């Protein structure tokens, strides 16, 4: 075929897809091998997929398709990593209460994570091709209280990893409660994520059972630094006030200190499943919604401000002498009262269908803190007491995990803890 002919093929290919169907059918009936037929105008027509180069993208990840996040390092990935578009949170339970089995889980998870995050197949990967687009894949492992307890290591639970109390506004379903292990798998490509999840659950299938799986997604807003904040299903711009990764504020807010030494450079994650009462929220007008949130819905600016990144001014009064940000507005109550209270918010939206005709959707609120006793717990207590948002949000799941620090190449996460 000459170059000229190839051009012709490409030009007719779009229309050809329509006509080729009929032509191929006729051809097949006449005993002609399907796949090469002629268009009505006589041009040769090859029924083949549109060339890759003509597609607008080959991965939903777009530019990040081939970007990788390092597995090895001082901290685990997936915490200070800019949020990926998709994340799945898994709670797993160790089948036995054997410390050796717990150690095996950590070896397998570390080995799989290091390979998959680098865009390489895991050991014994049955679909190695699905590892080829890492799209900033990160895999993070956490340890629950029950794991320390069942393996006889309750004395190793750090003081900064307490049980999180339940709050008056919670309506917790056991289904989403704490487990022995936590896996957080995130990527900009949902197929890559699903593959990594399947490989890891399979690899752990003789050691653990899956208690819950919470898939989530997000779409960043462009205004914020690095596009880190996103909108949730209520239209709210969420996660604007976050410590900036790499800053001293981030380090002290998120990464744990040196007691105990083995866990230094880790963090504590609190994963809350918050169901939104969207049908109720719909009854509110924009101005009323903004009063509840304390931010404008259109651009996320705090009330009284112009843009998303403007400081939240809690002390500004309107002409009538009332605070511009109402006393029960979410941003006011959730506002850190000191640097000590700072947490890293990494929320994802979930949309899990309908229950009795009511949409089951909301937020997987993942908060990371060096010490929830000084940050998350007092803040959540204030929210439970006063937050206007409570009327439209119900926390139905809560689980807390210690995220151990990262590891060096050749080592694995929390090595030595269970051996």
């Amino acid at each position, binding site marked *: 075929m000459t170059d000229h002919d190839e051009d012709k093929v490409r030009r007719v290919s779009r229309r050809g897809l329509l006509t080729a169907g009929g032509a191929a059918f006729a051809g097949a009936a006449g005993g002609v091998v399907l796949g090469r037929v002629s268009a009505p105008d006589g041009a040769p027509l090859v029924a083949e997929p549109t060339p890759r180069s003509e597609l607008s993208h080959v991965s939903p990840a777009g530019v990040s398709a081939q970007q990788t996040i390092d597995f090895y390092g001082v901290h685990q990935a997936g915490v200070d990593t800019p949020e990926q578009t998709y994340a799945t949170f898994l709670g797993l339970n160790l089948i036995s209460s054997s410390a050796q089995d717990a150690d*095996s889980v950590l070896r397998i998870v570390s080995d799989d994570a290091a390979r998959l995050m680098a865009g390489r197949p895991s050991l014994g990967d049955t679909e190695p091709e699905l590892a080829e687009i890492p799209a900033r894949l990160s895999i993070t492992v956490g340890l629950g209280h029950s794991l320390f307890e069942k393996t006889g290591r309750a004395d190793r639970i750090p003081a900064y990893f307490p049980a999180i109390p339940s709050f008056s506004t919670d309506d917790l379903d056991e289904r989403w409660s704490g487990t022995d292990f936590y896996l957080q798998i995130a990527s900009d490509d949902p197929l890559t994520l699903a593959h990594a999840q399947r490989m890891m659950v399979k*690899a752990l299938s003789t050691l653990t059972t899956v208690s819950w799986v919470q898939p989530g997604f997000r779409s960043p807003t462009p205004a914020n630094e690095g596009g880190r904040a996103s909108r949730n299903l209520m239209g709210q711009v969420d996660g604007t006030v976050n410590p900036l990764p790499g800053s001293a504020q981030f380090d002290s807010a998120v990464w744990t200190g040196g007691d105990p030494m083995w866990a230094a450079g880790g963090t504590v994650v609190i994963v809350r499943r918050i169901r939104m009462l969207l049908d109720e929220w719909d009854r509110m007008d924009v101005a009323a919604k903004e009063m509840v949130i304390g931010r404008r819905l259109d651009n996320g600016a705090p009330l009284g401000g112009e843009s998303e990144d403007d400081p939240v001014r809690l002390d500004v009064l309107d002409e009538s002498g009332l605070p511009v940000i109402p006393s029960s507005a979410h941003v006011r109550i959730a506002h850190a009262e000191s640097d000590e209270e700072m947490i890293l918010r990494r929320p994802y939206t979930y949309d899990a269908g309908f229950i009795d005709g009511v949409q089951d959707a909301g937020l997987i609120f993942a908060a990371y803190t060096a010490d929830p006793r000084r940050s998350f717990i007092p803040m959540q207590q204030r929210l439970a007491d006063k937050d206007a948002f409570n009327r439209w949000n119900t926390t139905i799941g809560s689980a807390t995990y210690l995220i151990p620090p990262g590891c060096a190449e050749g080592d694995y996460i929390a090595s030595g803890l269970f051996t």
Partner: protein
Amino acid sequence: MRIRKSGVRLYAAAAVGILTVALASPVHADPAPSEGSECSMSGATRFAKGQTFICERDGTQLRWSDGIRRSNSPLEVEDAWVKVMDSGMTSAFATITNPTDEPIRIVAARSIRFTPAMELHEVLMEDGAMQMQQKSGGFVVPAGETIVLEPGGDHLMLMKIKQSITAGEEVPIRLITADGGRVKFEAMGRVFAGANESYDDLSDGMDHGGMDHGGMDHGGMGMR
């Protein structure tokens, strides 16, 4: 066998000579077999008197090979794993690179804690079914290239395992080359549904027809 072209890393012949002078660590010492005596398991090995003896087929008999003087092999092993199994036999896989400018032939493998004998297997299509059999001559790693031992292809077989191999367990394995070179690596226990003895096994249970395992009874396979 899948051969992957890798960046050819040629060691100077002199450097190879230095590398192969001594073993890094002492190894398990077995009783030395008397010359040419019979043995019972194909692929069994003995390390004795600084030499390696391999149980090989000689006509209809299994006999100990002449001792081959041990050395450190320059082979490089990565991505090693072994299929999780309760009892019976199981297979191990790895990526093996030969950085030298001479081909290297792997003739035996050993994991004394887990198995009395390991065999080097290939998978062939026979009578319309995939069958495993011992690969005569072992695995050759061409100069400067990499071979991949993988399910459905060449692999290592751990016969009559002495203890279960669990997920995440590190199974130490040594490869032994024709010139007595040894290389040690750890294969991680991994859950894997494939790598079955033959596809017939999935429906018919054990069927050793067409297998050349030296007439051995392998016992049942666990974890199917």
